[in-house]
């Protein structure tokens, strides 16, 4: 923990001695490289200013210099805990540009993969959130089940975390019988597992004291701060992109959108726990529907090739002084010019992709609106007046991933 303490005296009432403390960027409970600039009166937070950018990799700039399918690989590295969801968001935007129709089987598979990503993300959130607050056992239980999901992912596409599984116009590989059976087994066992976690912390007195009444957001402020996903729903606004602007196969399946009442850390925890059950329900329904579409295609016929055609690359005699060895020749228009906006309900909130095409092989501009970025911007507001120890709970409840935030 890097602590730089600075004491400034503001002796108006004689008691005010404000501490200025840097928390992070290498603090274990900031879940990455988040730096918080704190002004403290004793242990009470007067001002909290998050400082980000330590994990900035310039995904938006890089995407402008890569082909459309190649940007999907970068999307994995945004929110690396739920990379399938990011892939879906990118593909939806590109498909809108191409006006592609994705086959039903592919849409069902995407829904399943998206919900699997949600479950694995929520499990990791619960594990680390509980660990930060002091409950070690939950961590082990959650990782046991997350491991199972990751091994299913491995069977689906060969990768455990950064699976570029979804591609423009469909998915890369079909589900085999073995995967369907394994997933079925998972959905049968999982509801009992959720009960296991809940018995550990749901009525645990320490858990309740650490989470109830912490970082309360009323619905009006939550919208104003731009909060989305479980954080917004914890405040009682049932905004879920899956219901409001259905994509993939979400209009075919039945599920509920759980909402909280008080808008505190405990309600957001409850919302996520209920969401786990709904995700499980969605996977179950989709698996049944997969049986109906046996043997149907998983890729649209007009889907672009993974390597978009470009002019034959002429070897450059020496690297371009500004651009290195990046191909600078003329490109054949493949993606029609225009713009497209697609947003999905990623496990952390609303993930929106806005892409502008000029008709070339590379996006002209690719804008990614990530939930973590907005949630961190709201942290200063949420942390005001709380104790330093509660800050750990607030970081946990917002479900931050710094890769998602800094891009």
């Amino acid at each position, binding site marked *: 923990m890097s602590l730089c303490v600075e004491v400034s005296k503001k002796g108006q009432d004689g008691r005010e001695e404000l501490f200025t403390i840097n928390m992070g960027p290498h603090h274990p409970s900031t879940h990455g490289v988040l730096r918080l600039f704190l002004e403290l009166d004793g242990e009470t937070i007067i001002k909290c200013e998050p400082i*980000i*950018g330590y994990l*900035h990799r*310039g995904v*938006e*700039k*890089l995407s402008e*210099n890569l082909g459309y399918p190649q940007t999907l690989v970068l999307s994995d590295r945004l929110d690396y805990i739920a990379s399938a969801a990011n892939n879906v968001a990118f593909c939806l935007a590109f498909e*809108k540009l191409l006006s592609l129709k994705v086959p039903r089987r592919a849409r069902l598979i995407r829904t399943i993969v998206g919900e699997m990503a949600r479950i694995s993300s929520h499990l990791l959130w619960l594990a680390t959130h509980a660990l930060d607050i002091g409950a070690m056992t939950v961590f082990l239980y959650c990782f046991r089940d997350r491991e199972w999901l990751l091994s299913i992912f491995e069977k689906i596409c060969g990768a455990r975390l950064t699976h570029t599984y979804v591609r423009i116009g469909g998915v890369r590989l079909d589900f085999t019988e073995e995967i369907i059976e394994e997933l079925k087994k998972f959905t049968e066992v999982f509801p009992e597992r959720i009960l296991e976690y809940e018995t550990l912390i749901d009525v645990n007195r320490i858990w309740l004291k650490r989470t109830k009444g912490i970082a309360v957001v009323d619905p009006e402020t939550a*919208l*104003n*701060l*731009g909060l989305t996903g479980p954080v917004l729903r914890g405040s009682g*606004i049932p*905004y879920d992109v899956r219901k*409001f*602007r259905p994509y993939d196969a979400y209009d075919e399946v039945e599920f509920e959108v759980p909402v909280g009442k008080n808008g505190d850390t405990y309600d957001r925890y409850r919302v996520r726990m209920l969401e786990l059950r709904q995700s499980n329900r969605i996977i179950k329904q989709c698996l049944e529907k997969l049986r109906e579409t046996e043997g149907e295609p998983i890729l649209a016929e007009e889907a672009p090739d993974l390597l978009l055609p470009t002019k034959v690359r002429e070897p450059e005699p020496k690297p371009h*002084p*500004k*651009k*290195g060895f*990046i191909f600078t020749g003329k490109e054949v228009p493949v993606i029609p*010019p*225009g*713009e*497209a*906006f697609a*947003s999905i309900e990623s496990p952390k909130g*609303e993930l*929106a992709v*806005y892409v*502008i*095409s*000029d*008709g070339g092989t590379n996006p*002209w*501009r690719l*804008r990614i*609106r990530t939930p973590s*970025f*907005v949630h*961190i*911007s*709201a942290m200063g*507001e949420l942390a005001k007046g709380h104790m330093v120890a509660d800050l750990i709970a607030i970081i946990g409840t917002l479900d931050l991933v710094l890769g998602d935030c*800094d*891009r």
Partner: protein
Amino acid sequence: MEKLLTELKELFSNFILEQKEKDVPTIVCQREGFLKVVSFLKERGFKHLIDLCGVDYQGYKAEKISERFGVVYHFYNLEERLLLRVKVPVPEDDPWQYSLTSLWKTANWFERECYDMFGILFKGHPDLRRILMPEDWEGYPLRKDYPLFLSPEEEWKGYKEFLKQVRGER
């Protein structure tokens, strides 16, 4: 949606330059009347500002764009489930735009990022600093004339100083 668009056209005919029906209903708005249009939209239920981003159109050939920069907003109406895109052209020689921080707190960081990446100034922003790049960074990375790779002479000062420090100590 159509009702709203016609209403907008009647009320703000001076400011709204264009209306387009793309994948999302789009209005192109002058920055002079922008704040009026947006406060009207917020009163009409567009309470969720999904996104705010800058765009650099230098060398864009697919469509004729009058100004080099643009700021693109996406608003969402939760009750009526409407999505609206508002585009504001920003000229190159005078890159500024009105800030939305008084209406949406979430605009604060979005605008800082837009300033960081494109150098568009936001009037009325309480704390316009770089956010993703280091504070002493030079240039605006997402502009089209900013190169993908820099030569060693043009590298960021902070990195060079860091290297000097490390090598000097050894």
